[in-house]
């Protein structure tokens, strides 16, 4: 919570602070998409043959598909031929061997974002993979992780060094036929992070990827694959920002998580893509497919997301609870202001016995924004004693915004217990009055109430992120109060 009204006023006048552009020499493909682009992409990445085939298969499938229209969002059709599918800072032919060889301007850009790539300066205990436009520019703490047996590297590197793992797992959770944007991603994904935690290893530090879109007219298509082998444990964080531009940029990522027997994956996202200006001009289209497969018994996947950015957010981090006794969790805060639109939620597919899932979703809508929770809880016949609890609350700030709830519940197993609760309300005058009576300004009171509303989710975030998330919330609500 901010300390005084003065600070709030400063905040209100503040722009999207990650909105700067880094001037760089880049290698960028001309806009356009056909098979030759995919051949070129695969070649530039030095990929094995099977990967090229996979991409082409996905591309051909994508061409047969139509852009989905069921979500509660409105946008003009995207011209996929006007997007450039590859943009990378220029660098030496064989890539940087160490941090010293990275373009200092890229390092500077990350410093400005508060993500110094210099290991000494970094908060102890977090390893970062930095993805700048289409490529990963640096991964920190590689050595230390290697000692523990953990593989944490850009996915393009994993394609060369661990093709057998990629071949086995890539597309096994989100197949290239899954949906329109997943097919596109499978065809043209450029980079992303790859994590493999071997049997019985508890990852010694938090892993983190920081995505940055910099170049104009490009789309970012990253792919993240996390495999937690038997009995392992990993916590992964993801952050993202982009410059302020008047045109909309597409970000279509795919994230696949595989949790084997007794493994635990915790995946946290603080999404702060450029949301567009006050009049709804510009901003990122964030169309993401995220899915976890709890393959082994007793495995657990926990998604936590704080969605404050993007002109349009359209994503449903999901859990397929295949293993017996597996657990899926989804904690989300989605905040929309001005003309932002969010259609987000989760899917929990109960297949194994005694599977449990928890969904806590908090939507806050302000300005002229539309905020939609859409979630599916499906209990198959095999899922004896499955248990789900869903709670989704919406808070409306202002009278021109919308908050919507579309839960889908499908149960085929009588021993399952499924509960869903949802409420929609505004900040009550009584609450505000109470706070003001105790000497708090209206803005502080709103900030405090909103933070309280979201607390259930924030407590799931790793400490550094929780602080960032709270600050972001204050920032994104600016101008919507009083």
């Amino acid at each position, binding site marked *: 919570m901010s300390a005084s009204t003065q600070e709030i006023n400063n905040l209100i006048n503040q722009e999207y602070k990650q909105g700067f552009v880094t001037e760089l020499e880049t290698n960028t493909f001309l806009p356009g998409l056909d098979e030759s682009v995919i051949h070129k992409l695969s070649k530039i990445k030095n990929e094995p043959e099977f990967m090229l085939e996979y991409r082409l298969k996905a591309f051909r499938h994508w061409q047969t598909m139509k852009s989905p229209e*069921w979500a509660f969002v409105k946008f003009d059709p995207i011209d996929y031929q006007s997007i450039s599918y590859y943009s990378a800072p220029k660098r030496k032919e064989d890539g940087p061997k160490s941090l010293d060889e990275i373009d200092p301007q890229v390092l500077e850009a990350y410093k400005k974002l508060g993500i110094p790539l210099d290991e000494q300066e970094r908060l102890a205990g977090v390893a970062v993979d930095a993805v700048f436009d289409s490529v990963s520019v640096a991964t920190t703490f590689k050595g230390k992780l290697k000692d523990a047996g953990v593989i944490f590297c850009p996915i393009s590197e994993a394609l060369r060094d661990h093709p057998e793992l990629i071949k086995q797992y890539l597309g096994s959770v989100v197949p290239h036929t899954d949906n329109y944007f997943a097919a596109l991603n499978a065809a043209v994904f450029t980079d992303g992070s790859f994590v493999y935690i071997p049997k019985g290893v508890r990852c010694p530090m938090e892993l983190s990827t920081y995505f940055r879109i910099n170049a104009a007219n490009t789309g970012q298509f990253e792919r993240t694959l996390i495999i937690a082998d038997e009995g392992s444990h990993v916590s992964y964080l993801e952050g993202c920002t982009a410059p302020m531009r008047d045109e909309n940029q597409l970000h279509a990522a795919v994230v696949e998580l595989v949790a084997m027997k007794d493994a635990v994956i915790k995946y946290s996202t603080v999404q702060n893509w450029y949301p567009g200006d006050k009049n709804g001009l510009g901003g990122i289209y964030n169309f993401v497919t995220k899915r976890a497969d709890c393959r082994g018994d007793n495995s657990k996947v926990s998604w936590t997301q704080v969605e404050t950015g993007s002109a349009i957010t359209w994503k449903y981090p999901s859990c397929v609870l295949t293993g017996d006794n597996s657990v899926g969790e989804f904690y989300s805060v989605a905040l929309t202001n001005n003309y932002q639109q969010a259609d987000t939620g989760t899917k929990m597919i109960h297949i194994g016995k005694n599977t449990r899932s928890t969904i806590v979703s908090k939507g806050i809508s302000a300005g002229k924004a539309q905020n939609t929770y859409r979630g599916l809880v499906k*209990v198959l*016949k095999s899922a004896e004693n499955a248990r789900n609890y869903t709670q989704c609350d*919406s808070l*409306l*700030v*202002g*009278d*021109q*915004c*919308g*908050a*919507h*709830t*579309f*839960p*889908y*519940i*499908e*149960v*085929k*197993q*009588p*021993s*399952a*217990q*499924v*509960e*869903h*609760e*949802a*409420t*929609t*309300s*505004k900040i009550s005058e009584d609450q505000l009055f109470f706070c003001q009576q105790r000497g708090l300004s209206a803005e502080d009171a709103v900030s405090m109430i909103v933070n309280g509303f979201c607390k259930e989710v924030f407590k799931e975030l790793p400490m550094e992120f929780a602080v960032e998330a709270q600050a972001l919330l204050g920032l994104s609500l600016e101008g919507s109060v009083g």
Partner: protein
Amino acid sequence: MATANTSAYVDGYPEVVSLLCGQSLPWLQQQRADALLQLTTHGFPSLRDEDWRYTNVSAIDKKHYGVALKSASVAIDSDWLKTYQLADAWSLVLIDGYFSAELSNLNGLPEGVTVVSLAQAMQDTHYSALIEGRLNSAVESTENGFVALNGAYFVDGALIYISSKQVLAKPIQVLHIATQELAAINTRTLIVADELSEAQLIETFAGLDCAYLSVAVAEVFVGQNAAVTLHKVQVESDKALHFGGTYVKQARDARFRHDNFALGGLLARSDVHTDLEQASECELNGLYLGVKRQQIDNHTRINHLKPHGISRQLYKGVLDDKARGVFQGRVVVAEDAQKTDSQMNNRNLLLSNDAEADTKPQLEIYADDVKCAHGVTVGQLDEKSIFYLQSRCVDEETARNMLTFAFANEMVDKVKIKSLHDLILGQVLTRFPQEGINKEWL
């Protein structure tokens, strides 16, 4: 994904057009033509339609349903009819969609109250001001393929009019009886309650043991400060397909309540849509019991258009064998509709391994000063309650029966008309998935 074929209904239309009511009304002919065109171009809904994603209507392709002829109706046993016809109510009976004056009981209707066959009313200019402009105004044929089918094909139905300040002493029952194998029965009901009036209405759907398609559309206009309760008792034959839609317009301060007891039919779907003006209230209740291979759907849509509206929904389902229950509820709060208070609840009890419950309670809210909540549960009986009863020397099976019955009986108890309550309770008991309900519990 198979989409049910409409060609039989489109191609056969010229042959049956002479059977349909309102031939002398040009505006109605135009509406029928529009409805048929809608059916031709858009067909029946498929699973790809968001509102029909859990309702697979391809079953209507498996048999060829033809328009029922009045002359082909099977004689009805009067004792059988008595189980459904309330003695202490005015009743209008439709056999295979056609009005039957002999079976109806419309004696002693007070002045200012009209209960008449829609086909007859259309021949009488006395009623034209009531019908024209209202028919097809609460719902249009663009709503879905079954409303379009009904709009093109309805042969008869009921017109109920309650003039202002009229408070009905007895309920009015519209009794739909199906008697013919493979009949397609399309009926239309128009209910108009003027300001400050009060009425209890009952729609009952029953049939002989045969396979038929029943499509019933009701349009209800509740005037300012009027109060209308509509009880729907759907006990169709267990081979029947039933698509019923109730479309309501509520004026300022109007109150509307709809209770749906959906017990019969192989595939039975009920849609209730209502538009609420300022400070109007609606209460929608439903109980569905599914056994064998039954699928029973309840779909609601409540549009809060103006401030201070109140809506309450409670739908409960008990599903056994391979039955499937579907609830899709949608509450829309428009930008203007501040201070709206809306609650939606759906509770499902699954009794067998093959039963299924699908539910989708949706909220769409464009106003900030509102209280809206929805809740859904799907599950089993509370083990603690069973334990409690067992600790009181009730054996487990009886305990389960008691609790299951109590779960359903909450809805039956909401019916305050004694004879109707008894009728519904009797139907619930005969169709109850579990045997061994003890009358002493009642």
